[in-house]
């Protein structure tokens, strides 16, 4: 009877061990997400998708407020600003809005102001609604020798001051978003002061959506 009891204990331990091993090694709960992304061409872009960068000087007659007139301006001597547009993300007729711009600015020690460097506008179509633009500095111009660097926004239609973005701080810069109705645009100015010779870079993200309440991450 005593031996019987010992065998029973061994068998029970083996059964529990097998059961535990089975649970930890081989059992999965399976879930899935199926995503279908349909990418239309820029000619089909509507609403927030048709908000981007442009220059009235580079695209004569573009039906958006006059902006981006100084994208090739001389800063000093014979040195000029250069602006290289990125991907075309919204096109209509012979006009286009760009996803991004890459800006090279030659300056000298001291303070500088660059007026209406480029435009950022919203080409509305039938049924287009107001959009909201959140601006976030993703790479700050925090190099030594840069005393301040600011992106200043003006309403391209009215000339009204809209706000300014501190390019030396990496964070979301707009606590409330900038609203753009179809056909409206911003003029982008730059103000920089350098106390020594240096090279500085920055990257600013523009998040365009339909909600004034929810911030982008």
């Amino acid at each position: 009877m005593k031996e019987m009891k010992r065998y029973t204990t061994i068998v029970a331990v083996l059964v529990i061990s097998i059961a535990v091993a089975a649970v930890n090694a081989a059992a999965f709960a399976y879930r899935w997400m199926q995503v279908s992304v349909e990418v239309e061409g820029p000619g089909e872009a509507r609403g927030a998708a048709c908000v981007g960068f442009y220059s009235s000087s580079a695209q004569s007659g573009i039906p958006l407020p006059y902006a981006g007139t100084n994208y090739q301006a001389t800063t000093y001597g014979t040195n000029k600003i250069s602006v290289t547009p990125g991907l075309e993300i919204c096109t209509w007729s012979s006009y286009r809005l760009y996803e991004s711009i890459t800006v090279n600015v030659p300056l000298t020690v001291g303070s500088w102001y660059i007026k209406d460097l480029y435009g950022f506008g919203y080409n509305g179509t039938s049924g287009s609604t107001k959009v909201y633009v959140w601006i976030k500095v993703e790479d700050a111009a925090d190099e030594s020798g840069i005393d301040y660097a600011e992106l200043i926004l003006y309403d391209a239609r009215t000339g009204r001051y809209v706000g300014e973005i501190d390019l030396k701080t990496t964070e979301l810069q707009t606590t409330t978003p900038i609203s753009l109705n179809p056909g409206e645009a911003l003029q982008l100015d730059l103000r920089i002061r350098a106390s020594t010779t240096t090279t500085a870079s920055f990257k600013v993200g523009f998040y365009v959506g339909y909600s004034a309440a929810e911030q982008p991450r």
Partner: protein
Amino acid sequence: MRGFVFDILVMLLLMFMFLVSISFASVYSYRWISGLVFVSSPVVYFSDPGTPNASVSLENHGTKALVTVNVPSIDLELDKRNAIFYDTFDINPIDQRIINLTCNWSWNPTAKAMQIAANQQAMTYGGECIAVADIDISQYASARRRIFVASLVWRTAFTGSGTHHFDVIYISTELSRLYTIGFRNVPQTGRTGDSITSDILYWSTTGWRTIASRSLGRSTTTEYLYLSYVTSWIDFSSWTAYHWNATLLNSGSIGSGYRFTPNYVGIGYRTSTTRVSGTVYFDNLVVTVDAYPWLVNVTNVPLGWRVVLRSAAGGVISTAIAGTDGVASLNVAPPKVDLTVYPNYRDGFIIASGTIEVYDDGNNLVVLKQFDYIIGGDVYRFNGFRGYVLRIDSGVAQPFQTHLTLTQYTGCSDSYIWIYLMNTTGILSTPITIYRGFATSLSTSVIVMRRGVSGIAGYIYVVAYVPKGARCSLLMEFRYSFSNWATYGINIVNATFVGV
């Protein structure tokens, strides 16, 4: 059944809100700017122009300037006295400062003037009664300078007839030669004017020679008991003699045979007859070199400001408005004064205890100062600062537009400051203006600068009037653009003007 329908509606609403939040809240189209900034050494920067009273310190490669200007505080100072002799004859000058050469000149303590009886004739010098200032003027004549002599003159009524000369004289006591310049008067009955002639004559030891003579017709200029004056000068460079009274009356070239170098100047009287009674008075004798004795100039006065000269009694003697040269010229020749009404009027060529006042163009009194004697030919300076406080250099050949903007100012009470930009061709901008302590113009106009000799493109030029002890600080932005203001650089100017 109704409850079921309500539940369905609530569910549909919740689903709709959920869908809306899904589609509007979380989707953004993403755009971006990538920027690259290349910062080089400045091409437009400040330098110290080395102006006295202005100290400059530079920071950030010359893109920021700290300027301190010690401004001589607002005041009036005698800058130059061009009179080499002056005397109000308030104290008997005879044998002290005046030498009687011919006739019996005396001093009248009541009139406080030199006097001579109208019937006196000298035995020498062609009959000219002469009293001279005890100062040798030969050095000025030898140096070919202009020697001016001015004196008040008046007379009592004459009884009898004759011709009378009221002169100032230039004499060589060594050569016994003489020039007389003045009025030849033939009295007429009453006080309605005499027949007068302007005469410039030369006494050659053997006789009178006329250098220039001009009839002035009937005039009350030397009528009895009218205060008048004789003013003359001889230019010993061109050898030309002049007679002036409110305007140039007469002038003549001194011929080579008539030339001599005088050693004294003074006053003269000559009559054609001894059968006349009356008295001739001379007062306020002034001798100047290269300066009109009927003018007192106040320099460094802003354009359009008013300068007023007052007598000791407070009456206005003269008023002048400063021109673009910053000079206000006060006329100190006396008006024709009726001495039967104002018997003691003597304010001409010398203003004893006179006051000079300077008013801004808003008619605010800026400074007032009394002087013991204000003498014709004097030059007074309205204290302030004028000069370059910063030099603007350029390291590139391209021209650029510039302007200066005032962004902040403090402590400028009662100060007047004008700040200009100037390029190397002399073009001046309109100024930033601090007027009685307040900024009335915040920006200059735009001017174009271009690198010139030694890299100099222009200057910041300042005119400042600051009260003693005041400390006026200005923060300004010097803006320059190579692209018609599409882009512009900003250099900083921090300027302090201290009244010392």
